[in-house]
């Protein structure tokens, strides 16, 4: 497995506030990492560092190319509440914008780009919504549009910020199934506040609460939880894949 991104003892935050302290993380091909942790613990800050949206105060962020894939693109699905749903733009144009990079300035989208967008829409199952304006979509449909935009460029790494908010259970199931398939082609990093349901899909879990604890499996024991004071639900795997949820009251 070759490395895509490596964070080495990163300190990061906004203005004068340090949110992430001494965080190190390796993201490799085939990874499927679930990032969990309390609100304000720095989950989104960590994503922003990996995405290059904020520069760390200290430490390094390094990207790697390997021979197999020179594609160093990152697909990103932001939280939907950051998007203006009244903005006059069609589903098709949103997805196509996922193919636009800093160097592509003039003209219009090529035929192959349009085809790629259509294929991607089919893949996430919303090809019939192509001509609609985003204001006409439901929450789940909007998430799928944003997912299509994130993966249309065939990125090597897909980053999702709480994709399971504002959607129903059926959609959530569909989403994880799509992500599981995508994981065969790209690494996936997903932030979630609701660990219970993601646990059976992610391969590894990172708990972010100012600093980061990385687990090389998707099983966390109660003792481990207690040790870093991270108030989350408990997940384990038994004989039959199942999820055990336990309440934690860490001070």
């Amino acid at each position, binding site marked *: 497995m070759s490395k895509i991104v490596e964070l080495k003892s990163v300190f990061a935050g906004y203005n004068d506030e340090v949110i992430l302290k001494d965080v190190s993380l390796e993201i490799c091909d085939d990874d499927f990492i679930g990032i969990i942790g309390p609100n304000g613990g720095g989950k989104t800050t960590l994503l922003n560092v990996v995405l*290059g949206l904020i520069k760390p105060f200290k430490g390094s962020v390094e990207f790697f190319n390997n021979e197999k894939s020179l594609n160093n693109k990152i697909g990103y699905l932001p939280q939907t509440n950051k*998007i203006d749903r009244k903005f006059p733009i069609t589903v098709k144009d*949103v997805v196509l*914008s996922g193919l636009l990079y800093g*160097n592509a300035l003039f003209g219009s989208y090529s035929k192959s780009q349009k085809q790629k967008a259509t294929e991607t829409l089919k893949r996430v199952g919303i090809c019939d919504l192509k001509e609609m304006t985003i*204001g006409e979509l439901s929450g789940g449909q909007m998430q799928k549009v944003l997912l299509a935009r994130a993966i249309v460029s065939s990125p090597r790494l897909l980053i999702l910020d709480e994709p399971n908010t504002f959607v129903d259970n059926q959609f959530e199931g569909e989403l994880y199934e799509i992500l599981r398939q995508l994981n065969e082609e790209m690494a996936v990093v997903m932030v979630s506040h609701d660990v219970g349901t993601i646990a059976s899909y992610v391969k590894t879990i990172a708990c972010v609460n100012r600093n980061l604890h990385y687990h090389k499996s998707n099983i966390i024991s109660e003792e481990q939880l207690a040790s870093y004071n991270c108030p989350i639900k408990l997940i384990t795997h038994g004989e039959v894949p199942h999820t055990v949820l336990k309440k934690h009251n860490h001070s």
Partner: protein
Amino acid sequence: MITELLQYKFIVNSLLAGILASISCGIIGTYIVTRRMVFLSGGITHASFGGIGIGYFFGFNPVISAAIFGILSALGIEYVSKRSNIREDSAIGILWSFGMAIGIMFVFLTPGYAPNLMSYLFGSILTVSALDIWLMLALSVLLILVFSLFYRLILFIAYDQEFARTHQIDVSFFNYLLISLVALTIVLNIKVVGIILVISLLTIPQSIANLFTKNFKNIMLVSVVIALIGAFLGLLISYKINIPSGASIIFSLVMIFFIAKMFLLIKREIVLKSGLGKKF
């Protein structure tokens, strides 16, 4: 009557100004409305009065000094709201009133009576000069160029800045470029409808267009046409009953808005009554 009117140079000038104002405001207004920058634009508009005051005091063309002052305020707001802890709307409020204060100070410090001051506040399309027309023409050409060359990127950034940034797009460059164009558009249209009313040309045609189309490009095109209709109607009213053109143009635009809204409501009623609504 029309051929008779066209013999007057000031009438021809005001018609040209109306056309050019519709083009620039139709385009930039769509950007302002969809990015929810109406309050910011109001701030730039009023701040540019500082430039007009300075122009009066030092005795050069107030439009030029207002343009410089307007662009600097726009860039200042963009910079401050990104870099510091001040809330963006508070920064706008401060600049809004500070610009007006500077303007009032310099106007009162200027010896003698300030001619045409009212025309800057309330607009007077009949007093636009040949220089104003040339500047407005240059602006319209510049806007058409920028929006057709960078259309995809502008739409992309306006829709989701953060995502655009993850695609190695120089978002701040475009933000600074577009905010400068917003400031230029505002200042060069002050003569047409005035400082107090210029925000209307940047919002009413777009809101009307948005009733009929939800596509960014179409909103731009339809806004230009609606602004044109409003400008001509307004000019006609202004000429007939001798009131400032700014007020009559805005009055016409708001009337068009209500007629459009009524039209859509009646259309919906007809659809419901004819039984077509049962399908849904």
